């Protein structure tokens, strides 16, 4: 398995120090890291899940809109960033692997190096309410 780009390594280091829940994905959208605050929101430790393919994490947390309608993968802000390389944001329900439903806001942005090469994307989460 090849070493990650330094920008991705530093992003992971930074995320590991923050209380803000964060997801880090690679250029394909595959999850390579989420921090401890994200673990608490998602209900599962990263050490237990390990890295996850986009299709896997995109459905694992059962994202739905206000009316309980499942959100298609390409409606998720982080997936929009992977597809478009533009920042994206949104709010929706997820059901953590601990069985708790949480309404979260997400802001996601691309990681692009000096030479213009895509390196991956990052999502910052905020829990608005639970039910």
């Amino acid at each position: 398995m090849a070493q990650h780009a330094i920008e991705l390594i530093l992003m992971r280091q930074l995320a590991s120090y923050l209380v803000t829940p964060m997801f880090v994905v690679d250029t394909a959208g595959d999850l390579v890291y989420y921090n401890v605050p994200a673990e608490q929101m998602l209900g599962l430790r990263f050490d237990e899940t390990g890295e996850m393919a986009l299709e896997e994490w995109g459905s694992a947390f059962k994202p739905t809109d206000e009316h309980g309608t499942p959100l298609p993968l390409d409606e998720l802000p982080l997936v929009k960033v992977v597809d478009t390389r533009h920042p994206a944001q949104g709010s929706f329900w997820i059901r953590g692997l601990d069985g708790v439903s949480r309404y979260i806001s997400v802001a996601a942005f691309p990681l692009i190096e000096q030479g213009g090469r895509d390196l991956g994307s990052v999502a910052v989460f905020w829990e608005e309410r639970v039910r």
Partner: protein
Amino acid sequence: MIVRLWGTRGSLPTPGASHARYGGNTSCVTVAGGVPGALTVLDAGTGIFALGEELPDDLERVDILLSHLHLDHILGLGFFSALSRPGLDAHIWGPGSAVVSLQERLSRYLSPPLFPVRLRDVPCRLSLHDVPHGGFELPGLLVTSDTVCHPGTTLGYRITDGTSTVTYLSDHEPALGARAFPEAPRWTSGYDLSAGADLLIHDAQYDDDEYDSHVGWGHSSVSHALSLAELAGVRHLVPFHHDPSHDDAALDRLYAPLVQGRPFEVTPATEGSTFDV
């Protein structure tokens, strides 16, 4: 490949008898062995001046690979005699920028009032290149580069002649922010460049206590250099970029307990030393 160290000091030249054995000139290393008439130079610290005094008359091409543009790595560039040879092909490679060209960034130093000669006016046939991501070829050598952990965009280089491999990570802080170092290779800055190298020339600016008060400055402790070398499975580590405050006696004391009993050879960098890789 023959690797020679022309400058081993980090940050600031340190002339004087107390620093003479390990060396007082800042970073400069040559890699010879590609094809006759061609020479590859890693960084242009003050050590490059002495290199210029010993260049062969039949040199046709020189490639200068800059790790980054901090002053101690380009301070000797304007004094490198190769740039004054009409007809010599000189190529300067450095980290790319989406905003300012390498020529413009280097010219901030190599132009009046900081320097009397403009970079564009040197007599040699000069070409400047942003280092492309991944690999590129020099005469007889394949160079792989990647960004590494150091303030500002900084490159490490892995050079092979098809038989042997030399890795150069002059300014590098792979332990920055790590909860425990070293971590898995995939999350370790510089791992891919170093993996299995026959010779790793690596930043070793601080002792452990000094590192604790210099976290984020972009440099390694000797312990971190040793840990990365072990993780990457290198054959020979050359701790490099000695702190200017460390005189010869201090470096002797620092390295004496650390170089023995490793699964790889350790030779602290001394100015003028050569390695047949």
